[in-house]
């Protein structure tokens, strides 16, 4: 038994929970629709407000009708009663206490009833049919004729006090309920005070009232439905152009610069469309202009490249010819030749990097990405810095995964990034080891380059990606970097949709992390490798973390158009 109850209770709770969840779901769905659809909101608001108005209006109307109906009935009833009182008085003249009062009353009642039905026939009574009651005081009294029990005591008291009074009273007669308008009036007689009551059934009025109520109800509902429909329709007229404008704006933002709104008529919406179109045209103009600037920049870059490189080639060849026969020169001349050739190397590297970064800035660089294994690229980059690393006495350690780590990358750029990072690490490692680690997860590959040299002071991790920034200008440059390597690497990483970040702490070395998505246009969430090396956690207080500034071109503030 107990188990049955428990099972029942649990079933009920489960059901309640499900109902609750369903209700919550509905509420949430409603909330979402409420927030997102202007049309829905306007329709619901209109419906709610007009329901209130229709309700109040209906109540007032009904009240008015009821008052008017009862008032008419009452006046007619009172007039009728006065007539009947006159008849009764004439019948009761000369009655004395000793007479068999009940019999007399019965007789009078019969008279009244017969005259009432006669009136009915002629249709003279405005108050309609009635039921008369005559009494000579007191509900307990036997001296009465007619259904005295139907008359409420309150009314009797008024009549006994010689007042004409009316009351609306519902009487339950063996299950059938009838509402009467009861008029009580005193009848002047010589003997005991006699009261006359006329009971007018209000069936007709009630019928009228219920018809009116039904009409009001149906009318109100129809009105509400119509209002909802109308408000829905009207809102749609406004909302539809707004929605199409929103869709057009979204397409415009998606790159379809030719997207415009159709302008029809001269109303507010067409004015909105017009100013939107003007805005779109203005933006398009500016974008075109920027594109033109880009093209100009590209041509300029290419021209500069050619114009600078041709004389540089001649100088370079001349210097090399001199350099080749420097043994025949006196010492000063020979050394000058050497300096000339060395500085030409630096000049060339600087020119190359400058052109590269100006092309990256102009956004004319394109990613030649293909699906390749990242490890060989890392190995090639390591091979290229092997010599300078050997000169600096910094061993390069490689930590590559055993399985292949294919990713969609531009091998030339990634190799350049890694070369720059490695050269930078060797430059600052003070003869310590440099460690390159490669790891991958589902969405990204990461490569960290760690050195154990001077490290970075707080705040410097963001600065390392700045152009021509040097941690310590007095330090001698072993690798002869141009000062643009990390800035170019940063841009190269961004071109891949990846990130290049730096961590460093004074005396604990630095760690650079390159994270690239495994597939282009598929963003990654977290890097497979931590930026802060495990042995660097302890020095977090003085460490510095940075990912470089954003060099994207700011679009000029749009000119405001007069909307009129």
């Amino acid at each position, binding site marked *: 038994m107990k188990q049955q109850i428990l099972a029942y209770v649990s079933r009920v709770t489960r059901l309640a929970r499900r109902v609750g969840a369903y209700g919550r779901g509905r509420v949430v769905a409603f909330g979402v629709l409420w927030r997102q659809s202007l049309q829905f909101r306007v329709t619901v608001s209109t419906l709610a407000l007009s329901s209130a108005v229709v309700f109040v209006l209906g109540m007032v109307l009904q009240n008015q009708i009821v008052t008017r109906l009862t008032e008419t009935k009452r006046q007619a009833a009172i007039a009728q009663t006065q007539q009947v009182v006159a008849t009764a008085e004439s019948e009761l003249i000369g009655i004395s206490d000793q007479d068999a009062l009940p019999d007399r009353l019965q007789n009078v009642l019969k008279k009244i009833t017969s005259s009432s039905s006669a009136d009915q026939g002629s249709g003279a009574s405005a108050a309609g049919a009635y039921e008369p009651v005559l009494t000579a005081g007191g509900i307990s009294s036997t001296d009465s004729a007619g259904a005295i029990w139907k008359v409420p005591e309150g009314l009797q008291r008024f009549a006994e006090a010689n007042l004409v009074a009316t009351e609306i009273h519902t009487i339950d007669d063996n299950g059938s309920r009838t509402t009467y308008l009861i008029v009580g009036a005193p009848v002047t007689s010589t003997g005991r005070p006699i009261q006359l009551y006329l009971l007018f059934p209000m069936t007709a009025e009630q019928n009228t009232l219920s018809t009116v109520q039904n009409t009001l109800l149906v009318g109100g509902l129809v009105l509400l439905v119509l209002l909802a429909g109308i408000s829905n329709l009207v809102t749609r007229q406004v909302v539809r152009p707004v929605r199409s404008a929103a869709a057009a704006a979204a397409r415009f933002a998606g790159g379809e610069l030719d997207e415009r709104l159709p302008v029809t008529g001269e109303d507010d919406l067409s004015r909105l469309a017009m100013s939107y179109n003007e805005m779109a045209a203005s933006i398009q103009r500016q974008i075109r202009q920027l594109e033109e600037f880009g093209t100009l920049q590209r041509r300029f870059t*290419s021209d500069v490249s050619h114009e600078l*490189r041709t004389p*540089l*080639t*001649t100088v*370079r*060849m001349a210097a090399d*010819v001199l350099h080749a026969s420097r043994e025949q020169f006196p010492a000063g001349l020979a050394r000058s030749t050497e300096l000339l050739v060395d500085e030409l190397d630096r000049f060339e590297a600087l020119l190359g990097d400058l052109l590269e970064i100006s092309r990256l800035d102009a956004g004319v660089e394109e990613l030649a990405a293909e699906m390749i294994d990242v490890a060989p690229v890392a190995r090639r980059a390591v091979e290229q810095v092997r010599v300078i690393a050997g000169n600096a006495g910094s061993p390069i350690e490689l930590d590559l995964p055993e399985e292949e780590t294919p990713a969609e990358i531009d091998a030339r750029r990634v190799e350049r990034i890694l070369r720059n990072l490695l050269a930078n690490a060797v430059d600052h490692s003070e003869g310590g080891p440099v460690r390159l680690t490669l790891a991958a997860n589902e969405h990204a590959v990461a490569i960290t380059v760690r050195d154990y040299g001077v490290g970075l002071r707080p705040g410097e991790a963001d600065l390392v990606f700045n152009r021509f920034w040097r941690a310590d200008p007095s330090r001698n440059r072993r690798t002869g970097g141009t000062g643009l390597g990390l800035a170019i690497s940063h841009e190269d990483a961004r071109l891949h949709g990846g990130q290049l970040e730096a961590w460093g702490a004074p005396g604990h070395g630095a760690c650079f992390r390159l994270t690239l998505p495994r597939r282009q246009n598929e963003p990654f969430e977290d890097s497979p490798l931590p930026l802060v090396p495990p042995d660097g956690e302890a020095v977090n207080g003085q460490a510095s973390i940075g990912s470089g500034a954003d060099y994207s071109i700011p679009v000029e503030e749009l000119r405001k158009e007069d909307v009129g």
Partner: protein
Amino acid sequence: MKARVLVVDDDPALAEMLTIVLRGEGFDTAVVADGSRALPALRELKPDLVLLDLMLPGMNGIDVCKAIRAESGVPIVMLTAKSDTVDIVLGLESGADDYVVKPFKPKELVARVRARLRRTEAEPAESLAIGDLTIDVPGHEVTREGKAIPLTPLEFDLLVALARKPRQVFTREVLLEQVWGYRHAADTRLVNVHVQRLRSKVEKDPEHPEVVLTVRGVGYKAGPP
């Protein structure tokens, strides 16, 4: 006998410097400053190699390259100031065998020139088969069913390299070393472009090659005879 190099360059200083360097290395040189005069000079002087600057007045370097290729298989080495992928590929596709990006070192240039002039001297009489082609190595002739197919020296070298080891798959790096003479990894686009050019001449249907087969992810190999 000295090899003759025709230098087509509009920059007088660079042209003179090139002359000095090449003469110093034992080449005979002639200089043309205008693209439109390159073709008459080629016919007159019959150089062993053309050193062509891509940016030229009169006639675009690419057009000069195409014009030369139309009537001669002479090795062409481009001088280009741009490291733009598009320009280099365009140059190679219009018939250049190799390229040097300015600014270059004299040694680099001389190495490129020597690699293109390198002729396998006094080769033994050797006949190779690749696909349905027959190669007469000393005669520098490739025939299909008795009909000769004209190839530039570079294309010929590329085909011979593949045909000599019919079962070996050549990576692009290995081909760069054997055919172009690069010691360390260089631009593998050279190989891709020249394989395409070679195929357009020797394949019946370049879309479905039977002579030079691609081995995906590795490189190329010779088609079975």
